[in-house]
């Protein structure tokens, strides 16, 4: 017995060494071509069944307390992933506090919502259901109700080992959000080397965009979405807006309560911006041109000619990508 044990001990010991698979951190992608904007990468690899479930949930009014609104009520997937109102109507017709941002290309933002309250889509989704202005529901309640729907129950069992739970509900919705990528914008094709993808006027707009400093904040894959900035660097936007200051105008201050964060907002992505009027957190700029003028004035301390604005509009319009599959 002992001799056999000695002979076998290396095998036994080695079999005990079977390890746990290591989780590697996500790879850091780099593009050092000096351009402030990089083309959109393809949508991350996702489970198609989860995405399909997320898409169904996204249009399901049972997610709201009074079954009056679905995600699509404000995030129109055929119109830039947002609506055309200054602020939207949430559950029970309550007016939302800020302009509805797009849900396109969220996978490439490092912060979620105007104040950058959330660092991840999961964290954002966790709080969304209970938000009294958005859904005024609870994930537990929604999960309970949807479990009675045999079609959902079956699809969830297929897409998630644990079936339909509050967590898998959220996971399906986040998977859908992450799938909403708008590739092949003319500007991305231009960056990829297709010079005729960008009209002359838009190319001039891009030059101005960089020269005037728009690209100091609106940069990266999402042309924004990855940093904070004070609204009114070179002037007092809120004093000159003409309407009283609201809580929502305080921006990131509402999250951090730091005085230095007053009027600070997440720099929004400018992808598909031509489709998401009106503009700013308060929806105060009805057109892209007017938004550009406000930005130039209050962020850059410049006044632009109408010709320059037209060039910039042309450039920004070239950031419109293909509407994601299944979106329209």
């Amino acid at each position, binding site marked *: *017995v*002992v*001799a056999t*044990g*000695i002979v076998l*001990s290396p095998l*036994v*010991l*080695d079999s*005990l*060494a*079977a*390890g*746990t*698979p*290591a*989780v*590697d*951190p*996500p790879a*850091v*992608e*780099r*593009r*050092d071509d*000096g*351009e*402030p*904007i*990089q083309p959109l990468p393809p949508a991350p690899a996702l489970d198609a069944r989860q995405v399909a479930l997320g898409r169904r949930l996204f249009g399901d009014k049972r997610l709201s307390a009074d079954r009056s609104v679905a995600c699509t009520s404000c995030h129109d997937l055929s119109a830039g992933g947002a609506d055309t109102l200054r602020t939207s109507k949430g559950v029970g017709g309550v007016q939302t506090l800020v302009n509805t941002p797009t849900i396109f290309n969220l996978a490439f933002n*490092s912060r979620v919502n105007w104040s950058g309250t959330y660092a991840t889509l999961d964290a954002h989704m966790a709080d969304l259901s209970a938000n009294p202005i958005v859904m005024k529901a609870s994930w537990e309640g929604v999960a309970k109700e949807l479990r009675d729907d045999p079609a959902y129950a079956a699809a969830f069992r297929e897409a998630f080992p644990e079936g339909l739970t509050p967590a898998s509900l959220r996971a399906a919705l986040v998977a859908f959000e992450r799938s909403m990528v708008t590739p092949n914008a003319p500007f991305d094709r231009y960056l990829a080397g297709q010079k005729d993808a960008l009209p002359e006027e838009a190319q001039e707009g891009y030059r101005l965009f960089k*020269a*005037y*400093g728009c*690209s*100091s*904040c609106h*940069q*990266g*894959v999402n042309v924004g979405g*990855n*940093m*904070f*900035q*004070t609204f009114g*660097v*070179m002037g007092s936007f809120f004093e000159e807006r003409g309407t009283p200051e609201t809580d929502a105008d305080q921006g990131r201050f509402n999250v951090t309560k730091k005085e230095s964060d007053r009027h*600070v907002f997440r720099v929004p992505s400018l992808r598909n911006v031509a489709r998401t009027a009106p503009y700013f957190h308060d929806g105060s700029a009805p057109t892209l041109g007017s938004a550009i003028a406000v930005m130039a004035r209050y*962020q*850059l*301390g*410049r006044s632009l000619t109408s010709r320059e604005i037209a060039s910039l509009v042309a450039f920004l319009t070239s950031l419109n990508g293909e509407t994601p599959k299944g979106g329209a």
Partner: protein
Amino acid sequence: VTPRALGGAAAGLALLAFLAYQGRPLDVKEHEATTRRLRQASTLSEALQKDVLRLRQGEIASYDPLDSEIAALREIHRALSSPPRFLGPDAKADLAARVADSAALLQSTSEAVETFKSKNAVLRNSLAYLAAMGPETTGALAGSADGQRLAEELNRLLRDVLSYSLTSREALAPACQSRVDALRGEGQMPGGVSRRDVDLLLDHVVKTLQTKPPLDAAVERILSPAATSKVEGLHRSYEAAHDTAQRRVQRYRAALFGAALLGVSLGGLLVIRRLSRDAAALRRLNDEKNEFLGIAAHDLKNPLSTISGYTSLLLEDEEMDAAERREVHKKVLLASQRMILLIKNLLDVNAIEQGEVKLHVIALDLAALARDVHESFREKAAKKSQPLRLEGDRFLPVRADRDALIHVLDNLVSNAVKYSPSGKPIVVTLSQGPLGGRCAVKDEGPGLSAEDQRKLFGKFARLSARPTGGEHSTGLGLSIVKRMVEAMGGKVWCESALGAGSTFGVDLPEANPAELAATSPEDAPARSSRWASVEE
């Protein structure tokens, strides 16, 4: 295999299993993953610092790398916060504390990075504005008749601001600020320069002055050597903890090897001892067999010689009368009967040894059987003038085979009569013994030496004692007795000293008296035909 040996083997195997478990190799994948994470953390920390510098210098223009690096560092810290399971509890706690420390630093770094991004954008824009619009305005001012002084003022301001933005000459800031204040008080500008354009320039100067200190502070925080040295310290302490764990495993492995070697040696030793013991036992058995054959042949030769001698006498001596012939025939008969007895005894011993004898153990009254045996030897003892007494308990229930027990008692009393000198008393005592019933036969014969007592119950024990009345002995009696008694779960014993007589005893297991009444009517014959008589 004794229970002690089994216990020892089990304990040995348990020890080996424990050592093997403690000596199992460290989880290579976990170690590699941890090392990889720590290395990545170092790389990422350095990359973060480098990218901040490049962004500050305008070499790159996208903040995405910073976000990816911080997200990856967060992920790594999250993964590291549960240290590899193979580390000792102290090392685990130490590492977890260091990871938490490093994560806290990462949090403060990421806040500094947010400040950096915002302030860097503002500073870049203002400097770009000053660079683009400054020369245009100063040029226009310089071109006008009374704008020389203002142009120089503005030019110096712009130079100083640029210098301030690029260097750490903090003293320039108040100087610039007072120039701004002076220029703001100038009123209308000459040379067609709009007051508003100059004010915008001054706004950007002020923005530059406001933005640089917090930007520098943020950069300083991000570039602080603490950020990289924390991660490196983490790496070093993990390496040390891993080495400790590795040494621990190696110690256990060495112990395992030693213990296994010891186990093999011990096992080998036991086997050798067992084999040599078996060899000795076999040798003894062989010697015994040889001796047995010699004695048996010798014992069989004597009566055969007698038979042969008397038979030739009968053939040769034709003058013998009928009475004489009858006498000789009787002697031949006696000799052949003695041979039959001897052979029967040998067969009995063999049968018992081969396990061919089936004992029918029942509840018996030892006292009653002893009385029968006592009765049957009265005459024989009287012939040698030996007072044969029976003493002690009148009722002793024991478990035994009836025939075998009678044979045993016969044998013990017969030996006493045989070996005691004439006139010496023999006492049969019945009593409670350690097992149940005891029957002891005490004589006042010559006694037995210690050497004889040792050989007493072996086959053909030829002791120094000799029968005192010319009786014969096969030397097999006591060896049969011992085997029978042991087969019934009893014990046979002897107490003696040279010149002080001997006491032979038999102890038998106790029986329930009720059982005795149920199973044993006292009608069986006192003597058995199943066993060779001890009588000749």
